[in-house]
C-alpha cells in the first residue's frame, strides 16, 4: 500500500476523522466528568473540613468554657479562702484535652506581699504537676498570653509558644482576663490561662487522610505553620515567610485569605512535593487559625483519567481495526482497477490482446471492467478493419500508380522528338497531380509536312478519366492520320466518345495541324482553354470558338480555323492545371499572370517557355498541394526549310 494508493488515502482519511471525532468526544466527556469530579472533591473536602472544625470545636469549647467560667467565678468569689491550686488541678484533671491551667494575678493583687502569684497545674509524663509561675527570669506580666487579654479586654487564643517556665512544652493558650469588683469598678486582676498541647492538635490534623497522599496543614492567626507534613516548617515558618523564601506570591495571597477567615478552593503545586494539587482552605473555630487540605490532582482525577485512557485505547484500537477492515475490503473491491490499469497500459503499448480482468461484481468497478473489455474488442475489430482497408488502399494505390505509369507511358516524352525536322521545335510537359489525372497531349506527323499536335483534359479524375484519356488519345491519332481537318477530327472523335458514354464523361480538346512548309496552322477546339499565340514576343489568346466539349453528346459540329504562323511564332497550349493552380491562400494563378509572364521576354525555344512557366507556377503554388495535372505543350515555328 503506497502513499499514493487509494486505499492508503481512504484509510488515512477514515483514521484521521475517526480519531478527531473520538478525540472530541473523549475531551468533552473528560472535561465534563473532570469538572464533576472536581466539584465533588471540593464538596467532599469541605465536608471533611467542617468535620474537623466541628471536632475541634467540640474539643476546644469545653476548654474555653472552663477558662471563661473560672474568670466569672473569680470576679466575685472570696478568693482568699480558695486553694486556687486545687481549682486548677481539678479542672485540668477532669478535662483530658486541657494540658494545663494557670491563674496568674497582677502584682500584689492576690497577696499584698507577692509580686508574682500564678498557680499552674499541668500534665507532666502522664501525671499532674503543680508549680508557681513567675520569677525574676520569667516576668509573666510581659508574656503575650498575659498582655493580650489584658490590653484587648477579652479572651484570646495565643500563638503557639514554648513555655519555658511552666510545662516546657509547645502549647497554645486560651487566655481570659479576669476582674475584681471593687465597689462599682471592675479592676483587671489577672489572666486565666488554659493550655492545649499542640501535640494532639498536630496528631489530629496529621491523621486526616485525603485520597492516597493528600495532606492537611494548619496555620495560626499569624500564619505560623502549626501542622505541616514538612516538619521543619512547623513553628519555624509562617506561610508568608515560606512564600517569601519560595518567591511564591500566590502562596502569600492564599495565606492572607486564610488568616482573614476566608474559604477557598484552588489548584496549585503543593509545597511538600510540588505536585499539582487542589487546595481547600477554611477557617477553624480557633481565633483566626485556619486549615488547609492539599490533595494531588491526579489522585482526584485518577478514575476519570483511567476511564478516559481506557476509552481512548479501546477507541483507537477499534479505529485501527476498523481502518484495517476498510482498507482490506477497499483493496479487494478496487483490485480489478490495478489489473485494468495494467491492461490499459499494455493496450496503449499496442498489445490489443492484453489480458483484462473478468468483471466480478455489478458495481461501478464491474461496469468499468466490462466497458474496458468492450473497448478492447472494438479496438481489435477497428484495427482489423483498418488493416484490411489499408491493404486494399495500398493495392488500389499501387494499381493506380501502375495505371499512371501506363498513362504517362503512352505520351511521347522524348525531346526533341524529330531531330531532323528544323521547321519547328516542340516541347511538352505533364506534371501529374497526386491522383491519376486525365490530361493528355500528343503530336505526330500525318504525312510528310502535316504535323498534328493536341492537348486535352478529361473531366474528372482517377481511373475512369485515365481510361477516357487513353481512349481519346488513341482515337485522335487514329482519326487524325486519316487526313481530316481538325474540325472533322473532333467531330468524329466526339461521336465515337459520346457513343455508349453512360458515365457522361467528357473531354476538352484542342487540336492543330501545322503545315511545316507554309506555317499554316489549322485548328479546332472542343471547349478547351484558348491557347496563346506568341508572335514577336507578344502573346495573345486565340479567340474562343465557344464550341462544346467532346464526348458529352453525339453529332456536335466543330469548325476548323486557319491562321498562318510567321517564323519564330510560338503556339502555347495548356490545360487549366496552369491557370487554375492555387497557392496556399487559395488564389488562382490566372490567365492574366500567364499572359504577363509570356510577354515578359523573348523565348527562344518552346522548351524555354514551358520551363519558365512551370517554374513560375511552382513558385506561385509554393507548398500548396497540386490539385490538377499541369500540362503544357509548345510549338515554335522556325520557318526554316529542310
Amino acid at each position, binding site marked *: 500500500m503506497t502513499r499514493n494508493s487509494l486505499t492508503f488515502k481512504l484509510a488515512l482519511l477514515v483514521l484521521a476523522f475517526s480519531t478527531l471525532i473520538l478525540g472530541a468526544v473523549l475531551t468533552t466527556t473528560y472535561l465534563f466528568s473532570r469538572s464533576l469530579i472536581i466539584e465533588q472533591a471540593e464538596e467532599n473536602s469541605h465536608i471533611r473540613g467542617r468535620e474537623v472544625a466541628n471536632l475541634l470545636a467540640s474539643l476546644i469549647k469545653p476548654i474555653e468554657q472552663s477558662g471563661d467560667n473560672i474568670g466569672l467565678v473569680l470576679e466575685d468569689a472570696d478568693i482568699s479562702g480558695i486553694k486556687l491550686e486545687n481549682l486548677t488541678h481539678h479542672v485540668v484533671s477532669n478535662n483530658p484535652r486541657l494540658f494545663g491551667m494557670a491563674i496568674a494575678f497582677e502584682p500584689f493583687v492576690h497577696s499584698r506581699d507577692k509580686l508574682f502569684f500564678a498557680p499552674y497545674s499541668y500534665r507532666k509524663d502522664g501525671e499532674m504537676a503543680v508549680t508557681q509561675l513567675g520569677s525574676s527570669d520569667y516576668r509573666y506580666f510581659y508574656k503575650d498570653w498575659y498582655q493580650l487579654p489584658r490590653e484587648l479586654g477579652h479572651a484570646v487564643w495565643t500563638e503557639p509558644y514554648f513555655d519555658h517556665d511552666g510545662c516546657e512544652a509547645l502549647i497554645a493558650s486560651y487566655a481570659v482576663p479576669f476582674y475584681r469588683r471593687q465597689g462599682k469598678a471592675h479592676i483587671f486582676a489577672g489572666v486565666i490561662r488554659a493550655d492545649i498541647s499542640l501535640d494532639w492538635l498536630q496528631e489530629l490534623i496529621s491523621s486526616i487522610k485525603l485520597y492516597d497522599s493528600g495532606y492537611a496543614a494548619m496555620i495560626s492567626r499569624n500564619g505560623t505553620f502549626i501542622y505541616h507534613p514538612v516538619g521543619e516548617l512547623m513553628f*519555624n515558618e509562617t506561610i508568608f515567610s515560606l512564600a517569601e523564601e519560595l518567591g511564591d506570591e500566590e502562596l502569600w495571597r492564599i495565606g492572607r485569605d486564610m488568616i482573614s477567615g476566608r474559604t477557598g478552593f484552588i489548584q496549585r503545586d503543593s509545597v511538600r512535593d510540588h505536585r499539582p494539587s487542589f487546595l481547600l482552605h477554611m477557617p477553624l473555630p480557633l481565633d483566626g487559625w485556619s486549615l488547609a487540605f492539599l490533595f494531588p490532582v491526579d489522585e482526584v482525577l485518577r478514575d476519570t483519567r483511567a476511564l478516559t485512557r481506557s476509552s481512548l485505547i479501546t477507541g483507537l484500537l477499534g479505529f485501527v481495526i476498523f481502518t484495517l477492515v476498510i482498507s482490506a475490503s477497499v483493496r479487494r473491491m478496487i483490485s480489478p482497477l490495478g489489473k485494468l490499469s495494467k491492461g490499459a497500459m499494455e493496450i496503449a503499448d499496442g498489445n490489443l490482446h492484453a489480458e483484462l480482468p473478468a468483471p466480478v461484481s455489478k458495481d461501478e468497478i464491474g461496469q468499468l471492467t466490462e466497458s474496458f473489455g468492450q473497448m478492447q474488442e472494438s479496438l481489435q475489430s477497428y484495427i482489423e478493419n483498418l488493416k484490411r482497408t489499408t491493404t486494399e488502399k495500398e493495392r488500389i494505390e499501387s494499381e493506380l500508380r501502375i495505371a499512371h505509369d501506363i498513362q504517362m507511358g503512352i505520351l511521347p516524352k522524348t525531346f526533341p522528338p524529330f531531330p531532323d525536322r528544323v521547321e519547328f521545335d516542340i516541347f511538352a510537359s505533364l506534371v501529374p497531380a497526386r491522383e491519376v489525372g486525365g490530361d493528355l497531349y500528343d503530336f505526330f506527323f500525318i504525312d510528310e509536312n502535316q504535323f498534328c499536335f493536341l492537348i486535352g483534359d478529361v473531366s474528372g479524375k482517377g481511373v475512369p478519366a485515365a481510361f477516357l484519356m487513353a481512349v481519346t488519345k488513341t482515337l485522335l491519332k487514329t482519326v487524325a492520320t486519316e487526313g481530316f481537318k481538325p474540325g472533322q477530327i473532333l467531330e468524329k472523335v466526339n461521336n465515337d466518345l459520346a457513343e455508349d458514354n453512360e458515365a457522361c464523361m467528357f473531354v476538352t480538346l484542342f487540336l492543330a495541324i501545322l503545315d511545316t512548309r507554309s506555317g499554316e496552322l489549322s485548328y479546332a477546339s472542343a471547349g478547351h482553354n484558348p491557347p496563346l499565340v506568341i508572335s514577336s514576343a507578344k502573346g495573345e489568346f486565340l479567340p474562343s470558338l465557344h464550341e462544346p466539349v467532346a464526348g458529352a453528346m453525339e453529332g456536335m459540329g466543330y469548325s476548323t480555323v486557319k491562321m498562318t504562323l510567321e517564323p519564330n511564332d510560338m503556339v502555347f497550349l495548356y490545360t487549366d492545371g496552369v491557370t487554375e493552380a492555387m497557392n496556399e491562400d487559395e488564389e488562382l494563378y490566372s490567365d492574366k499572370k500567364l499572359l504577363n509572364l509570356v510577354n515578359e521576354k523573348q523565348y527562344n525555344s518552346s522548351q524555354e517557355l514551358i520551363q519558365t512557366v512551370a517554374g513560375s507556377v511552382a513558385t506561385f503554388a509554393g507548398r500548396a498541394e497540386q490539385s490538377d495535372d499541369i500540362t503544357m505543350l509548345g510549338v515554335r515555328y522556325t520557318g526554316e526549310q529542310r
Partner: protein
Amino acid sequence: MIKKLRPIIFLLLGFFVVPTAAPAAELEQMKASLILQWSPQAQFAGYFVAEEKGFYRARGLDLTILPGGPDRIVSDYLATGRADFGSLFLATALERRDAGIPLVNVGQFIHHSSLMLVTRSGDMTEIKDLDGKKVSLWANEFQIQPRLLFEETGIDVKVVFLEQSMDLFLRGAVSATSAMWYNEYHSILSAGLRREELQTFFFKDTPFDFPEDGIYCLETTLQKKPEAAAALIDATREGWQYAFDHPEETLDIVARRMAEANLPVSRAHQRWMLVRMKDVLAVALQQDLGTTLEQKTFEKVVSHLLSQGVIYDPVEYDDFYRGAR
C-alpha cells in the same frame, strides 16, 4: 602572685610534659565569655561564625558565648562577673555605667540605629499622632530612644512592655510597636502584612540615631585581658566578613544555634536579618578603624542622655572608649 601564675605554670608544664600533643602554631588560649544582648539569631551571626570557624581560637581566645534573652540583662551579667564581655547598645551601656557599673567600650560594630517604630498605614503619619496611644516597647534598655523621642515630640504614650512576639501589635492591642529593622519588622511582614500597609519611623532619621551593638566589659576586665578584647573585636569582624561571604553556611549555623535554644527558625526571616546586618555593618567592615566609636557621636548621645535625665554624670570619651583608634 603564685595564684596568678598558676595557669601559666600549668601551661608551661603541659608544654614540657606533652610537647607533641599540641601543634606548634597552637596559641596559648585565654579563657573569656561573651553574653549577647538577645537570643540567638542572625544579628549575632558574626560571633557564631567566628566561633565555629575557629577565628577566636586562632587569636588565642577560648571564648564561651552565652545566649542573651529578654530575661537576661547583659549589664547584670557583666557586673556580677557571670560574663567577661557583653554586647550592648551604646545608650544602654552609658545608662548602666551611670548606674554604677564601670563599663567600657572596646569596639563598636553598629554605628547607626536600626530601631524603628511601626504602625499601620493610615493610622498615623507623624510621631505626634501617637499621643495618648498604646505603644509597645521592650522592657529594658531598648526604650531609651523612643522615650527620648516621645519626650522631645511632647507626646504622652501609654507604654506596654514588649516581649519577643509582635502579637500585641498584630492583634491591635497597641497602636505602634518598637521593632528592629532587621528583626521584628520582618516578623510583622511574615505575619501577612505588606510593606505598604505599614508606616515606619526610623530612629536613624531622628536626632536619636544612637550607635547600637558594641562590645563592653568592666574596666577591670580590660585591665586583666586587654589582648582578649582586641582578639574578640578582630575575630568577630572576620566572622562577619565570612558570614556575608557564605550566607547559606551562615544561615545553617544560625539555625542550629536557634534550634538549640528552642527558638522557632524561619530561614526567610534569618536571611532577611543577615542581609540587613550586612547593611548596618558596612562601616565596621569597610574601614580599618571601622570598630572605633566616633567621639562626636558619642558626645551627642551623652548630651542627649544627660538632657533627658537618663544619665546624671558626664562621661569622658577617653574613659569610656578603650578600643582601637
